[in-house]
């Protein structure tokens, strides 16, 4: 094994040496141009990618971003159509294991030389880096990170519960929820009812109970772990969460409940950092809520990684190639990542960005701190609900089980364990 790795590295290194002058030449000769596809069209997502485009133009490039509004599926439809037509965009939004899957249907750009030149690999969480270099070569670059299991605590609900500290373990969490309920908070949990939202409730429970078991079961699909005691406990915890929710939520997104959350009629959201941006855009203040890392039974932070990324598709036009080089450099640039995350509420991919300055919230600082600790303790795992742990087909088959479980209280945790294992078997 080690020998192969070394040889691959050597090969990559020589390819990089060859590639570098070509990139440099291309950039010198023509005006860089970038065709890009993403679903980021509105709100803070739209604002962030537009700001990135401005930077691209400031560097002398031509920015041709074509947003595909709607669900990720529509964005992928567009990408698929362009690939079938033999006209892929120079770069497009894609994430998680889909990067490896899609890289098999059309040639991608080897970014190793650029990544090496920027010293980027050293500052990216290892599990994350792996997703962006299927086959050992960098072909995609992560842009921003969220943790899907952050706790958003309503200040007013905390007051009602007379709680003096934030929860660390699931026992603390359950205790707090009970206190809230007793203190007059109608529904201690404020989550929405979309499919990813239901998945998040489960993955937060599972990873918080045992990140090792989560890694084995959800990321590596280990059969024993998929039927082990930890996953059963995770389903039991998920049921508690579901019971504390408003049964009327239906398929509404979490944003529908923001006012009741801030008012203290609902207590806790298990959400990613994007919820901070949504709360702020809706006109609520930082004093209205606290953001802390999700519950972890061994008291060390567990980080459920969700990262947005760009994949780079091979193009023969010199201006597009120059545009890809410029885009790659920008995406890896700490200043650009800072700008991007400050708009969306995420944290930078680079672990060496200082978040102590102005423009960062306490929630973002805690998220970044949690990432550092989680990586150090090997407790940073990939999110299932947000398509980071498995390819979309398998993810969706698993979420089918999770959403039914959350919405149907007659399903026992044991049954859910069996169903999930069956769904994995059926989808493989």
């Amino acid at each position, binding site marked *: 094994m080690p020998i192969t790795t070394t040889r691959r590295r050597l090969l990559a290194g020589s390819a990089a040496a060859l590639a570098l002058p070509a990139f440099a030449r291309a950039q010198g000769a023509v005006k860089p141009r970038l065709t890009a596809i993403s679903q980021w069209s*509105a709100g803070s997502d739209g604002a962030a990618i537009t700001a990135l485009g401005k930077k691209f133009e400031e560097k002398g490039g031509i920015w041709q971003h074509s*947003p595909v509004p*709607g669900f990720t599926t529509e964005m992928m439809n567009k990408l698929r159509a362009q690939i079938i037509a033999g006209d892929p965009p120079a770069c497009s939004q894609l994430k998680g294991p889909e990067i490896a899957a899609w890289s098999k249907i059309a040639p991608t750009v080897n970014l190793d030389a650029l990544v090496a030149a920027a010293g980027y690999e050293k500052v990216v969480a290892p599990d994350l880096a792996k997703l962006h270099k299927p086959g050992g070569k960098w072909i995609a670059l992560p842009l921003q990170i969220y943790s899907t299991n952050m706790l958003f605590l309503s200040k007013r609900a905390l007051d009602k519960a007379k709680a003096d500290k934030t929860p660390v373990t699931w026992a603390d969490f359950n205790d707090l929820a009970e206190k809230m309920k007793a203190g007059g908070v109608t529904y201690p949990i404020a989550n929405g009812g979309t499919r990813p939202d239901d998945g998040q409730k489960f993955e937060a429970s599972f990873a918080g109970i045992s990140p090792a078991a989560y890694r084995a079961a959800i990321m590596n699909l280990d059969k024993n772990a998929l039927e082990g005691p930890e996953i059963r406990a995770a389903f039991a915890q998920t049921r508690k969460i579901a019971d504390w929710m408003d049964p009327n939520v239906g398929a509404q997104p979490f944003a529908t409940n923001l006012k009741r959350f801030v008012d203290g009629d609902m207590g806790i959201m298990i959400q990613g950092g994007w919820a901070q941006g949504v709360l702020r855009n809706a006109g609520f203040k930082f004093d209205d809520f606290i953001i802390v890392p999700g519950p972890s039974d061994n008291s060390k932070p567990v980080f459920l990684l969700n990262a947005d990324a760009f994949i780079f598709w091979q193009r023969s036009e010199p201006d597009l190639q120059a545009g890809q080089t410029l885009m790659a450099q920008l995406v890896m640039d700490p200043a650009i990542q800072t700008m991007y995350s400050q708009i969306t509420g995420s944290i930078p991919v680079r672990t060496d960005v200082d978040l102590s300055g102005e423009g960062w919230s306490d929630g973002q600082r805690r998220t970044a701190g949690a990432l550092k600790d989680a990586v150090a303790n090997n407790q940073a795992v990939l999110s299932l609900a947000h398509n980071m742990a498995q390819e979309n087909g398998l993810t969706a088959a698993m979420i089918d089980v999770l959403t039914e479980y959350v919405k149907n209280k007659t399903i026992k945790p044991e049954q859910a364990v069996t169903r999930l294992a069956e769904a994995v078997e059926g989808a493989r």
Partner: protein
Amino acid sequence: MRDRTFAPSRMLIYLVVLLVAVAYLVPLIVVVLNSLRSNEEIAQTSMIGWPLRWAFGNYLTAWSDFCVAQTCAGIRPYMLNSALVTIPATIFSTLLGAVAGYAVSLWRFRGDQWIYGIVTLGIFLPQQMRLLPWTIVLRDMGLMNTLTGLVMIHTIQGLSFTVLFCRNYYVSVPQELIRAARIDGAGFFRIFWRIILPLSPPILVVTVIWQFTHIWNEFLYGVTFTTGQQQPVTAALIALSAAVADIPQNGVQSAAVMIAALPTLLIYLIGGKYFVRGLTAGAVK
């Protein structure tokens, strides 16, 4: 049966009809009210409610200001794109459908029933299933990311409906009319022009309404087969609706919905009268 007295039974009719009408109007009322509330007000109070402060500015934002990524021109350019696809596709599919429906119903030729059967089966073939084959066709014709490609798709797909509507309408035109005209020496086009077309306004209104609204409201092909600046109005509407990572801009979105629905609503308001009246006039017995 058809007198104009206000007997209790007539009052009952009015009551039922009015109640149903109110129920039908509720969703529209909700959208109209939301179009006059600010995004923040909706997020901070509730999805359904009376405006606390009238936010007429939503309409201006929706029409010419809001951003879809880097393009901040409101819904206006997207309305134009939709019109450029919808109007030609509606005209082509309606005219071709009328001629084909006339041929199949009154002219009769070998294999007509077969081909009619296959074409009308097309109304049952789901759009989602045709997405990839159309991708390949567009690629081979070099029409990817062109409005021409979309017009072609909607014209060909629309034929299934227009032929169905027109054929079912023309079957009730008496064959003797055609026979007499042929004896007088009139040909295929002459009969269509002189006899059939003057009988057709009601059914043409039906097909135009149907085609126009369906193409105008179409989203899947609209975003897959266009790029950036050519996207249809539905794409801009979706961009404003709830994204996972963002607050739904319900106020501006509702205003945009109202503006985007104006052409189709107008078509229904004007057309609805004609197609019922046209049939009533006794053109067809």
